[in-house]
């Protein structure tokens, strides 16, 4: 990342500790199973759009699930999200497995987490009182 603004002016008290203390949890409504290639396939129930009402739904049937096939790294991250492990613990384990520095692992893992949260595969529990 290129330098943006002096960190001493803006980030003296800033910390990403709160993000690292968060605990990602799987969507309880999602169903996951391995496909023939050994990759995780996660089916997330999809919400019917408000405009899809009868008689439109007699002709257009919205899918009940959205299917996400996770790649090897994404599948590994998804497996770790048991609601017990913190993001920091997942980053540490990911960095150890792939021999990355902590921040390399952090950027990779949080990228996957962000993607999975956006797609409704995961949710994140954030502790109430952390620095």
């Amino acid at each position, binding site marked *: *990342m*290129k*330098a*943006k603004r*002096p*960190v*001493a002016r803006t*980030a*003296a*008290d*800033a*910390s*990403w*500790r709160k993000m*690292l203390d968060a605990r990602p949890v799987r969507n309880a409504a999602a169903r996951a199973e391995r496909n023939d290639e050994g990759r995780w396939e996660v089916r997330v129930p999809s919400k019917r759009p408000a405009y899809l009402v009868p008689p439109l739904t007699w002709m257009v049937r919205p899918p009940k699930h959205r299917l996400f096939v996770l790649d*090897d*790294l994404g599948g590994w991250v998804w497996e770790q999200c048991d609601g017990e492990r913190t993001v*920091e613990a997942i980053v540490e384990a990911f960095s150890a497995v*792939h*021999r*990355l*520095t*902590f*921040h*390399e*692992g*952090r*950027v*990779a893992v949080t*990228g996957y987490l962000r993607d999975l949260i956006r797609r409704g595969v995961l949710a994140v529990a954030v502790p109430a009182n952390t620095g």
Partner: protein
Amino acid sequence: MREWIWRGFRFNLPDDWELLQFSREQGIGRCAFADRYQYRFEWSWRSVGRAPDIERLMTDYRSKLVTEGTMTEPKLVALPGWHGLAGKQGAAWISRFGRFFDDARCLAELVFLWPGSRDREIERSVAASFAPVPVQDGVQPWKAFGMAVEAPAAVPLSSCKVEPAHAALTFSATKRGDSCVFRRLGFATVWLKEPVADWLRRQAPRTVRDIACTQETRAGHAVSLLRGTLPRRGPFFPPRSYAAAAWQCPGDERLYCVTQTQQKGKPAAAPALSCCAGCEVRL
């Protein structure tokens, strides 16, 4: 402590402080380092013609902070060769030190952010390790993102790409068309499904002719080398040579790659890339 070399200066920082923000510019810029929880250290530089009165600058800055009330208990501090200022800003301590390096004509400022109490020993050792690294034999050393690099001094750093498990430093001079690219790639066990020599050959531009591939072993590293010729880009452009080397370090299992493109008949200094203490590959 781990050594870093950036923009012609070397310094040692605690092992877990990583470079998260950086500038490529020579004249004025900044690098910021963080531990796993927050930013901890910032180094900023500015090329200046003559030595400023840093003690005076710090005194004026202290007066400004007292007037504004942004820092509590600001006090002047010093380390050998450095003048500084320390105080509490919010919940964190901040200490900053300035110094003018006469040979490099460069004003350097080091800023430490301390979430708890100040660690004077770290301040002292970082400041003591801070020194300019002059150009020697036409090459300028750089050390960052797990790579120790020697790049031709005549070719400036034009791009620095840092992603998880992929760091690339590109040095290029647009007029001459010379360039050097140093890369360090992780996750090799995931994506590298072919011999390194084949991968290196696929990385070469399609227009490369007269390709010669060789293999060497250096300090236990199997290094693949490739040399070739690039055709003229036009009637007024000279032909260029292309050289590349790649290997997988058994220590960290990452793939290292260095490539150089330069005008034929006007050889620049040979770039070198090291992955670990035992292995340096110079093209």
